[in-house]
């Protein structure tokens, strides 16, 4: 057997977990591009540094984003890897595909690029890995002809994404697929024509289980919730108990606000203090269910650490009824964008702007009344002087 070109990479094939190397090697025989990328990676492992150049700006006509440029720093050694641009394709809401659609995508990318895909990137998009500048327009036409479109990149609205929602899940408080779909179509300009200070992500989760991690991964998080009491079926709870399920352990003790009592016969929930974490409902789905007054909480500002540390989203609108057309969501979104546009610095995420301005000032600018639900816990520092005190003394 001929000696392997990539002995270091081959190490990754040992072990019991699957490796990206295996998939790429399968492609390497038919795609010289993939072979050269593997050879370049082997070189990187030897040199302990990347051989991708920083940056690169490529695109298709009419769009300011959707394609991320990638060039090799040693094209003479690895000619196949000279260009290896990434194409982001807008995924369908909830990631529902027909197998025909997946085949179409794969055929297109095998024809115009490396054939390697990443389903899905952390933005939610379909990622087509590796093509050349010359193939960008052809691939774009091939995709749009089949009804696909590019996703967002750069300082723009990124492709909105959502959980599978009511399509497969009993807990969805509203049709998050439709919200995602509508926002994507309504804000095409903002997705394809970057004009923001930095990236902006919208994620929509149907319930507080938050399966798309909206609270941690989106600047604008829409998360399903309910306003009234948790619906209790005591009979079902007793059945769980009779089956040996531990209600004390899985509901009472795990309730973050200690709002549940169970006396062996009846469960009682102090709904005023419930924070809608879903723990008890997830543990006992037949006995407990979210209330009937359903809507969403809108939260703002989560991000991964780049310029500043990581942030979670925090409450902007505690409860919003979700009405078709979603005018209220769009209105809040656009007011937030306006403030960000006026005050945001280059590469400043919305969460960082809120921190810099202070939430009070930000709320005033956006025109939203402060609410106790925006507060994590009461102020611990008593040495605070409010404006009205100062005025009285003056």
């Amino acid at each position, binding site marked *: 057997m001929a000696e392997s070109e990539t002995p270091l990479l081959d190490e990754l094939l040992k072990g019991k977990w699957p490796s990206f190397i295996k998939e790429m090697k399968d492609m390497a025989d038919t795609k010289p591009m993939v072979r050269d990328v593997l050879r370049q990676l082997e070189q990187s492992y030897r040199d302990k540094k990347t051989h991708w*150049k*920083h*940056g*690169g*700006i*490529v*695109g*298709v*006509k*009419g*769009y*300011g*984003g959707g394609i*991320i*440029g990638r*060039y090799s720093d040693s094209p003479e050694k690895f000619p196949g890897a000279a260009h290896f641009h990434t194409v982001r394709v807008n995924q369908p809401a909830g990631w529902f595909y027909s197998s025909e659609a997946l085949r179409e995508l794969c055929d297109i990318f095998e024809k115009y690029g490396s054939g390697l895909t990443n389903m899905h990137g952390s933005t939610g998009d379909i990622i087509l890995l590796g093509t050349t500048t010359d193939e960008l327009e052809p691939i774009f036409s091939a995709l749009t002809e089949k009804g696909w479109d590019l996703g967002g*990149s*750069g*300082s723009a609205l990124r492709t909105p994404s959502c959980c599978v929602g009511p399509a497969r899940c009993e807990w969805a408080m509203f049709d998050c697929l439709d919200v995602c779909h509508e926002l994507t179509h309504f804000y095409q*300009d903002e997705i394809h*024509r*970057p*004009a*923001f*200070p930095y*990236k902006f992500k919208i994620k929509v989760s149907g319930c507080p289980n938050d399966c798309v991690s909206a609270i941690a991964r989106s600047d604008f998080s829409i998360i399903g919730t309910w306003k009234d009491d948790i619906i209790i079926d005591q009979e079902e709870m007793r059945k769980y108990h009779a089956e040996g399920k531990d209600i004390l352990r899985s509901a009472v003790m795990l309730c973050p606000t200690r709002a549940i009592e169970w006396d062996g016969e009846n469960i009682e929930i102090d709904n005023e203090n419930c924070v809608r974490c879903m723990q008890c409902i997830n543990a006992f789905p037949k006995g407990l269910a979210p209330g009937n007054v359903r809507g969403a909480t809108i939260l703002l500002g989560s991000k991964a650490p780049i310029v500043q540390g990581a942030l979670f989203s925090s409450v902007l609108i505690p409860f919003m009824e979700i009405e078709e057309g979603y005018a209220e969501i769009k209105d809040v979104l656009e007011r937030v964008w306006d403030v960000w*546009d006026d005050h945001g610095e*280059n590469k400043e995420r919305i969460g960082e702007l809120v921190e810099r301005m202070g939430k009070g000032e930000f709320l005033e600018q956006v025109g939203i009344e402060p609410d106790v639900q925006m507060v994590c816990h009461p102020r611990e520092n008593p040495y605070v002087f409010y404006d009205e005190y100062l005025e009285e003394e003056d």
Partner: protein
Amino acid sequence: MSMEVNGVTIELDDDGYLIDRNQWTEEIASALAETEDVVMTDKHWELIKFLRSYYEEYQIAPMIKILAKEIAKLYDIDKRAGSKMLYELFPSGPAKQACKVAGLPKPTGCV
């Protein structure tokens, strides 16, 4: 990459941006615009002028929102219409195309 303008060879980077910014002339700008299939009009030149003077003052290319506001001011339209107009003038994005034509350094891309 390189191209020839009036018999002078101009060095360009992988993405076709000017390497030596001091070489910039209006002829080179027109030639760069041609590589992007952009036909320069007065509106294009006005924007390029603004970009270059902004760069001279701040040593950095302006954010797109600043460009959009400037163009909105110039033509007395709102900033959304301004943003739209930017993309009409430079269909693949002002960051990519306008900076290239203005001979500004390549904007750092995002991953």
